[in-house]
């Protein structure tokens, strides 16, 4: 178990700066998830932590020890690759034992650890097989096992579920969290899937364009996004954004699709700052409800309905803006309805910078 810290970590490939000064703080024993769209630099960051890439600038600390210049083998980390990267010429047993053999671990200890990991992951019947004779899910478990036997202080996961089919993904996700809780080692997990990120993380790092946009627990990030990017990235279906709305002169309401939506009387918010300003309004699809005509509701015209069982995602338009409303499946959606937004669930973003206006 170690805490992981990076200070001003930068990485460039040629002229392209992929990481623009990352300050990471992962407390020991926690499960941190780096989430962001493809190309945001999350995998590069993980590879820097593993030592597979060299930082252009900045420092990496494991438990206070500067490991920036260490080779991967000297960092004592275990990593699960997206491709699993099982050694094709070795049996499952040898795959599991390889890391321990390299570290000259005694044979009886290797045996014990391999047996234990195989039991935990249900790999016993597969130990003498070669990777080519395994299914995708089994390969994934071997990759997990290879990390587990090492008893490393830090586990790195590089999108380990993206090659599994959706049903298996949910199950393995739970397994990964179980193993983390059992072993207690610090884990850093990279994914582009925000559902995975939300469900696994103790601590979420939302990355975009080589920068950390926000750090917090999944719920903090969901409830209180730092900016428009985070608000749009976290949560499914994604938050609706309505550009070009104006806050009323008294700062008590915002005009959306020519309707006045009252803003919550918040202590933190200074009405004078927002009054009369053009903003982007954000509303989560789950924070809207269908109502009878009301002064504080906005008209919504559904066009496509996605039925998910208990709920329906209605895609349509709020006046001139496209958006999604998530409603209970038993509610009839007429051609045109009015939707109400709870004032406390309205988000306002700076039209230019995208920063959340509080």
């Amino acid at each position: 178990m170690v805490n992981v810290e990076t200070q001003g970590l930068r990485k460039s490939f040629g002229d392209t700066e992929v990481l623009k000064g990352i300050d990471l703080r992962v407390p020991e024993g926690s499960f941190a998830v780096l989430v962001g769209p493809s190309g945001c630099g999350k995998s590069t960051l993980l590879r820097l932590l593993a030592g597979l890439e060299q930082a252009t600038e900045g420092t990496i600390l494991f438990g206070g020890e500067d490991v920036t210049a260490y080779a991967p083998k000297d960092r004592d980390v275990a990593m699960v690759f997206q491709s699993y990267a099982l050694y094709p010429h070795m049996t499952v047993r040898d795959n599991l034992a390889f890391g321990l053999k390299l570290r000259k671990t005694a044979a009886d200890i290797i045996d014990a650890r391999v047996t234990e990991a195989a039991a935990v992951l249900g790999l016993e019947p597969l130990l003498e097989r070669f990777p080519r004779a395994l299914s995708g899910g089994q390969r994934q478990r071997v990759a997990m096992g290879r990390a587990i036997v090492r008893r490393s202080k830090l586990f790195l996961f590089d999108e380990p579920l993206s090659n599994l089919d959706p049903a298996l993904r949910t199950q393995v996700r739970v397994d990964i969290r179980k193993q983390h809780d059992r072993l207690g080692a610090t884990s850093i997990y990279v994914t582009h899937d925000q559902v995975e990120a939300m469900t696994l993380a103790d601590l979420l790092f939302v990355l975009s364009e080589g920068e950390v946009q926000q750090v917090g627990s999944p719920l903090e990030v969901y409830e209180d996004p730092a900016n428009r990017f985070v608000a749009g990235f976290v949560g499914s279906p994604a938050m609706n954004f309505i550009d070009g709305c104006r806050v009323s002169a008294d700062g008590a309401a915002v005009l959306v699709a020519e309707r006045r939506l009252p803003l919550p009387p918040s202590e933190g918010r200074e009405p004078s700052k927002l009054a009369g300003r053009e903003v982007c309004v954000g509303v989560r699809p789950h924070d809207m409800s269908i109502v009878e005509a009301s002064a504080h509701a906005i008209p919504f015209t559904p066009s496509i309905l996605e039925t998910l069982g208990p709920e329906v995602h209605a895609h349509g338009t709020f006046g001139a803006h496209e958006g999604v409303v998530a409603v209970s499946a038993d509610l009839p959606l007429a051609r045109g309805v009015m939707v109400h937004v709870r004032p406390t669930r309205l988000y306002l973003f700076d039209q230019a910078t995208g920063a959340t206006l509080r």
Partner: protein
Amino acid sequence: MTARAIANNVLSHALLLVAVAFALYPVLWVVALAFSGDSVPTARAIPVPTAPTMDHLREVVSTTRPTPDGGTAWLFGRQLANSLLVSIATALVGVGVAIPVAYALARFEFVGKSGGMATLLATQMFPAVASAVPLFIMLEAMGLLNTRTGLILCYASTSVPFAIFQLRGAFETIPVDLEEAAMVDGASRFEAFVRVVLPVAKPAIAVTFLFAFMTAYNEFILAATLLSDESMFTLPVVLQRFIGEYDAQWEAFAAGALVVSVPVMALFYLLQKHMVAGLGAGGVKG
């Protein structure tokens, strides 16, 4: 099986038989000649030995040469040894030099990489014969004419670039993830190379070795140019000697050809299990 399936089966086997006969017909003639007692090959449709005999075979393998102390030594044995030694050394040098070069070309970016590749490619564009005269002059200057070392050097100059091309392609197909996983597991870059990359590339290395071996084993023109002493000859040169300007010992030639083929067939047999395709499959999701 339906009548249609049976008909298809018969037809495909008939076609295969024709193809096999087409490929094997010349070989069968060589076999027939090698064991024929007649002195002149007769044109017949079906190649079977006439007056079967082992004499030609015996004659080919039992040549001797005088030794300085007045005795005789087994000449054919020495020539066979020459051939094997030169070919194995050529393949070893070719594969041995090519493995690190090919790996570097497959994995690293460095100054001169594309220029180096282009130069290697250029060496492959000229037939070896084109360099026979310069090679002769160089070997003469180095005192390596009429030696096995000289011949190995010449052969290596073509086997190395060939092997580099073969192995670079093979290394490029091995996912980098495998090496990275090994390095995270505790291997140095070199250990990852030795314990992961080399075993995974084994089939490609075996094939490259075999091709380099066969090229050297079958080569005639350079060997005939650079070797003048009978005891230094490699087998292709020996074989050629049976076809003289005024008479051709076809039976001896055929018997020699059979003997010469044995080591290559043996090597194929030994290496075939290493050449199984798909050894690398399954390591990464694909």
